[in-house]
């Protein structure tokens, strides 16, 4: 399915309390291990800081979509009312800017919202019908998981990952191997 060859061998550490989980992440990152993926059942406060993620730029995208909406709405209405179809509505000016404000505002919001949600879906790989890799079914229920890629890693490194996880409060550490035709 994917063009890039993906790893199939993973180690999964599972936690059942988010605060223990956050501390574990700090320690594990401090020890220089690379976390492949982090899965939680709900947004955990402070998680992206613990993982060292940079802030999302989704809001910048939203602003740009919104600005597009503003520009389009204003220029379209101006073109219609001034150039293409100028009508005298009871002596009102041909370019009644205050009348344009409501629709301009609505279209700004519409463009910002639709554009942001589309960007969000694309960046998060959220597509109807897309079958994701599910490392463990409980990560949408009651478990917080760290996924480590162990393709081509030595036994020593694998053992280090396992001992670090269980040493920092993981309730379960296990291997997760994906077969090539695994589905939901």
């Amino acid at each position, binding site marked *: 399915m994917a063009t890039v060859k993906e790893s199939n061998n993973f180690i999964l550490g599972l936690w059942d309390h988010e605060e223990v989980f956050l501390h574990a992440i700090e320690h594990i990152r401090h020890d220089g291990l690379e976390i492949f*993926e982090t899965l939680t059942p709900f947004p955990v*406060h402070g998680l992206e800081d613990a993982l060292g993620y940079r802030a999302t730029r989704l809001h910048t995208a939203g602003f740009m979509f919104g600005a597009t909406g503003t520009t389009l709405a204003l220029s379209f209405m101006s073109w219609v009312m001034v150039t293409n179809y100028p009508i005298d509505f009871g002596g009102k000016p041909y370019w009644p800017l205050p009348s344009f404000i409501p629709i301009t505002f609505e279209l700004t919001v519409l463009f910002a919202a639709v554009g942001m949600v589309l960007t969000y879906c694309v960046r998060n790989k959220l597509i109807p019908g897309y079958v994701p890799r599910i490392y463990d079914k409980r990560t949408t229920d009651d478990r917080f998981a760290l996924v480590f890629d162990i393709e081509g890693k030595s036994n020593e490194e694998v053992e280090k990952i396992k001992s670090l996880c269980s040493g920092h409060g993981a309730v379960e550490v296990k291997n997760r191997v994906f077969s090539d035709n695994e589905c*939901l």
Partner: protein
Amino acid sequence: MHAYESDFREPLINGDKNYTIITDELVRPTEKTYRGWWLLLIIFGTLAGFFVFCLCWTVFYGIGVWGLNKTVDWAWDITNFVWWIGIGHAGTLISAILLLFRQRFRTGINRAAEAMTIFAVICAGMFPVFHMGRVWDAFFIFPYPNTRGPLWLNFNSPLLWDVFAISTYFTVSLLFWYSGLMPDFATIRDRAKGKYRKMIYNTLSFGWTGTAKQWQRFESLSLILAGLSTPLVLSVHTIVSFDFATSVIPGWHTTIFPPYFVAGAIFSGFAMVETLMLIVRKVFHLEDYITINHIESMNKIIVLTGSIVGIAYITELFIAWYSGFLYEQFAFYNRALGKYWWAYTMMMSCNVLSPQLYWFKPFRRNLYITFILSIFVNIGMWFERFVIIVTSLADDYLPSSWAYFQPTWVDVGIFVGSIGLFMTLFLLFARFFPVIAIAEVKAIFRISSATAKAERAKAAGTANGGFVGHTTFGILDKDAK
């Protein structure tokens, strides 16, 4: 790590819970059918069928089958439209504004409130569309390039602004609601037993897995959508009020309309959310998640917005008198004491007087009273729109054309049927979609649940817990010793 809230605050999740139990209890309504659900679906499904029948009747015979006459040419249709839009407005506003203000009681009600918005706007949209008569020409309301020469819409018209406002509002509400649903669909998918159930919920979840990056973007998206929706809601109901306020009909031509309509919308929306949530918590046994505390919080907002609406009614009367303008004075005098006095009385008693009971705590925390009053508020808000629309038109400038509006069975059928459609959609939602935002409830579990509060109290060493009831406060007891 967490911003722990005071343990004096009442918990928002009752009972002895953990994440597993929360998932179980909140997904369960989607996994089995409750008997009460079938009963409600049959009743409201039948009404929805009648709605379709009445609309077909209207299209076939024309809107002459409604009770409209030459004087009162806007009546139940626009009343129903504004009523539904008002209900619809509150859902997203509740969800968005409570998110911006970081109100944790939001998590119990936001999903259902947003769903209510979507279905109410669907119902609302039907009325102006079918009032056009020739519904197949409904697309004329959008500015599109056409072959009739340069011919465009009038961008000065509030009716056109309304088209943009309501379609934008519907779209944004839908996106806001659905983006929140994706993670919960994934939760249902990962518990699903059957192959097709898994496939369907995976499709609905758009393949959500809950990675840290997804959640980071999710939080950013919900915050900004909430930030966009809040002014959007205000703008949309303001624009709906412009439909009346920019006209030159006495009784409509009032500058107080925008804030007054917005407050009315929040008022009726909270009432409708209460009606629905009281049914949902009973039918699906969700008493631990939609607590009396949630109900009381909503009742506080109802008494606030109900009083704002009351002040608006009185301000209108005062300004009409103070203006010294004969026609304006007549419109309001006639509204309160004229031939529609009964509608005005209904409006005043349901909207202004009855919510005043909520100044008293026992009333705010009584489920039966809340349920009855929530229906009262909805009735009152319908009459508010009826009073504004019909009484202002019925006695216009020319006494020879004064008329009385009487609805026909089609008017009644469409209105009652639209309630059927709304409830049918809501029941289907409650049966197949997670009616409480599962992920968001879990996110407040460590802060606001009874379990977490008890754990903290235990850790702090107080004998009977930080919060154990309405009257006993463990910490105070300890201090007294």
